[in-house]
Every structure is written in structure tokens, then in C-alpha cells.
């Protein structure tokens, strides 16, 4: 069984936000909507301060609270673990956005453009106005790549845009159920954590922070 997962190696991330830009370019999200964000966190007190860059977005949880609260069944989970939103079913109640502990969901009430008026290269998607949106793990690229016999996480054409764009090799994508996959090997070789694991959502976004002891 395939179980897609993403890994962010916190030792490698430099906070360049290239993944954020790549996501916006690939998915055409409006201003203020960032399906892939990188947090710039300072921890500690001066002079003992450490800085960490933390990529965040939809964690495609095993037990997604957004799906349970959704009254319209617009939010669903595929067999491969990707959490999707059916824009034709969603009523835009924003309940899922409040239920998500990862602040991963967005809803815009009207179309906005980066520079006020619509630029020639901006192609608004009316379907995504007034409904919830979020990171899809670039599901269209994955499905199209698989149809061509490509391997997501290995072949760029079948891999999420943010992972392809990462200049530091911090982001990885692959099948966590395949013991020989890139993500399985990284998880075996390193210590990792998942965000807000205590909530029982089972996020499938892993953060590497040190090598395995």
C-alpha cells in the first residue's frame, strides 16, 4: 500500500522560501494564500538564541480533523493518504480551517491579484473562490507521473513542486510504506518528530532534527 509522506530536514533548510514561491507558481494561489510556508523561528533568550526554519503546510494527516468536521464531505482522504478538497461540494463554511491545528487551510471571499489589477500571466480559478483550499501534495503531478510510470519523489515530473525547488535538499517526498524509498531510508537514518503529535492527528509530514543515535 502506498502512503505518501513528506520530510523536511531542519538541519538543511535555510529559509530561502523558494518552496513557497514554487508552490505559488505551480498552484496559482492568490495573495495571502501560501499552501507551503516556511516559518522563521527564534528560540531561547539573548545571547543564547537559536534560529530554525520550519516548512509547514497541510500535513495530510492519518486522522484529519478537517475531514471529520466537514459537513459537505468535500474533504476526503485518498487510499494513498492524500487529503483532498472537492471544490464543487465545499460550501465555504471555514469550519475545516478552524479545526486544522496546522493553519494549513485558506478561504478567500473574492478574487485578488498580486498587483491590484489582473496581470496577463495570472489565471484566476473561480472554483477556488469562497471555498477551502490547501496543499494537495501536487496531486495532479503525482497522478500524471504515475500514469507515465514515473516515481514520485525520485522523478521531478511526478514530485511536488516545493520538493523539486528546494535549493538545500531539505524537502523530500516519497512512499513511507516502501522500506526502500528515499523517505523510509531518511527516517531510519535520522531522528524525527511530527508537529503536534499529541493531538492524535497522525501528520504525515516528518521533521528531521538529528542523525540517529
Amino acid at each position, binding site marked *: 500500500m502506498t502512503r505518501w509522506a513528506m520530510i523536511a530536514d531542519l538541519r538543511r533548510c535555510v529559509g530561502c522560501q523558494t518552496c513557497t514561491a514554487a508552490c505559488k507558481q505551480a498552484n496559482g494561489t492568490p495573495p495571502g494564500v501560501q499552501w507551503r510556508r516556511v516559518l522563521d523561528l527564534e528560540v531561547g533568550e539573548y545571547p543564547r538564541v537559536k534560529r530554525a526554519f520550519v516548512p509547514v503546510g497541510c500535513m495530510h494527516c492519518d486522522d484529519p480533523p478537517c475531514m471529520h468536521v466537514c459537513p459537505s*464531505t468535500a474533504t476526503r482522504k485518498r487510499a494513498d493518504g492524500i487529503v483532498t478538497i472537492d471544490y464543487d461540494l465545499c460550501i465555504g463554511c471555514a469550519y475545516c480551517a478552524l479545526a486544522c491545528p496546522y493553519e494549513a487551510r485558506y478561504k478567500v471571499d473574492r478574487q485578488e491579484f498580486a498587483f491590484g489589477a489582473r496581470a496577463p500571466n495570472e489565471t484566476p480559478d473561480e472554483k477556488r473562490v469562497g471555498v477551502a483550499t490547501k496543499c494537495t501534495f501536487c496531486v495532479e503531478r503525482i497522478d500524471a507521473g504515475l500514469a507515465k510510470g514515473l516515481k514520485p519523489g525520485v522523478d521531478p515530473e511526478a514530485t511536488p513542486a516545493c520538493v523539486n525547488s528546494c535549493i538545500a535538499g531539505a524537502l523530500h517526498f516519497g512512499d513511507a510504506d516502501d522500506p526502500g524509498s528515499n523517505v523510509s531510508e531518511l527516517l531510519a537514518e535520522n531522528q524525527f518528530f511530527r508537529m503536534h503529535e499529541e493531538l492524535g492527528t497522525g501528520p504525515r509530514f516528518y521533521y528531521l532534527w538529528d542523525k540517529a543515535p
Partner: protein
Amino acid sequence: MSALQRHWDARAAANFMLGGAGAGLVACAPLTGNSALVFAGLAMIAAGLGAVWLEIGRRLRAAHVLFNPFTSWMTREAFAALLLFPIGLFYPLFAAPLALAFLYCQARILHASKGIPAWRAREVMALVVSTGLAEGAGLALVFSADRWLLGAFGAAVVVRYFAWRRYRAAVRSEALEPAGRTLAWLGTGAALVLLPIAPPLAGLAAAACGAWLKLALVTRASFKQGFSLPHLPVRGAR
């Protein structure tokens, strides 16, 4: 104003304020035998649902709210309302159980929001249900001073106070403090003092304080918990 919606605003809060108080009114109506109170409660519930309808992004698809009774308390609330209206209109004094179900669904809607610490606490359920009942009984006092109603109001107000104390012990939210203090002093203390002297005033005070608390709970206390790093990245030499 940004096009991006980050939280529920007063339109969604109105569903909890009007709907909760309306459901409480329907639930208390059998104590007075006055069917008109049920109709007033139904009107409030309808107004609350109308307000939240104004907040959704795709209003013409509102019926889709009924699609997920298996896990969504919002869907269950909608079904409770769908059943409550015909029963309330044709058998007004038998509508109390459905009104209580509607109120319970509202409490569970908040509790199911895992992203918001002030909502996901278990204690929020008793607070929302007891607030609805206290508000409903308070509004009923404006029209009736029945002995049973006076007793029910007093009990609901006291239960609500303890539900607030319990909630406050579990969730520390600065955003709720002003409304909580008012609920304790005006909505409980003053309301109980006024009850034998001026029941309608006592009822209105309790109802207004409950509405303010729910407005604050939905619109002001809905902070996300943010992000946390249980481990910092280990870079370079150890």
C-alpha cells in the same frame, strides 16, 4: 478588508448566540405551557442559521451541509434544526428534546475544532449547553413568572456559573475574561438577587451576559495554538 478569512466572525457567532438562546427558550417552554415561547425560540434559531448562512462562501450550496451526518456535528446540528421546526410548529410543547439536541450539537461543533485550544477543551460543552439553557430560561422570564420557570432559571444560572468556573480552570483565555467576569457578577450574582424582585430584569441580564460570552468565545478566543518545535535542529559540531 482582506479577502482572506482567518476566523469565524459575528455572523457565525450569531448562530451560537441566537440559536443557543432560542433552543433554550424552546426547551423551557413546557414549564410555562406557553406555545408562543416555542415560536419565538424557533424564530431565534432561524435567525441564527440565517446569519451563519451569510458567512458561508457558497450560499447556493447550503444544502450540502446535510451530506456528512456520520462525523460532522455541523451536519447533525442542521438535521436537528430540520426536525425541530416541523415538530415545534405543529407540536410546540413536544419540541424540547430536539431543542436540547440542537444545543448539544452546537457545543460539539466547538469541541471538535482541534486547532483552537479554547474550543477543543471538554469543558466547553457544559459551558455552551448551560449558557443556552440559562439564556432561554431568562428570556422566558420576560413573559412568564411561573414558579417552575423561576426555579429552572435559578438552577440554570448556578450551573452555568460553575460550568464557567470549570472551563476557566482548564482554559486560560484573556479574551474571555471581561465577558466571564460580567457573567459571574451580573449574569449570576445580580440575576439571582433580582430574581424575586424583578424576574424579567434578572432574565434579561442572564441572557445578555450569556450572549456576550459566546460572542467572545467564537470571535475573540479562537486563537490557533500555533507551532512548536520539540527539538531544535542539530547542526555542525556537537
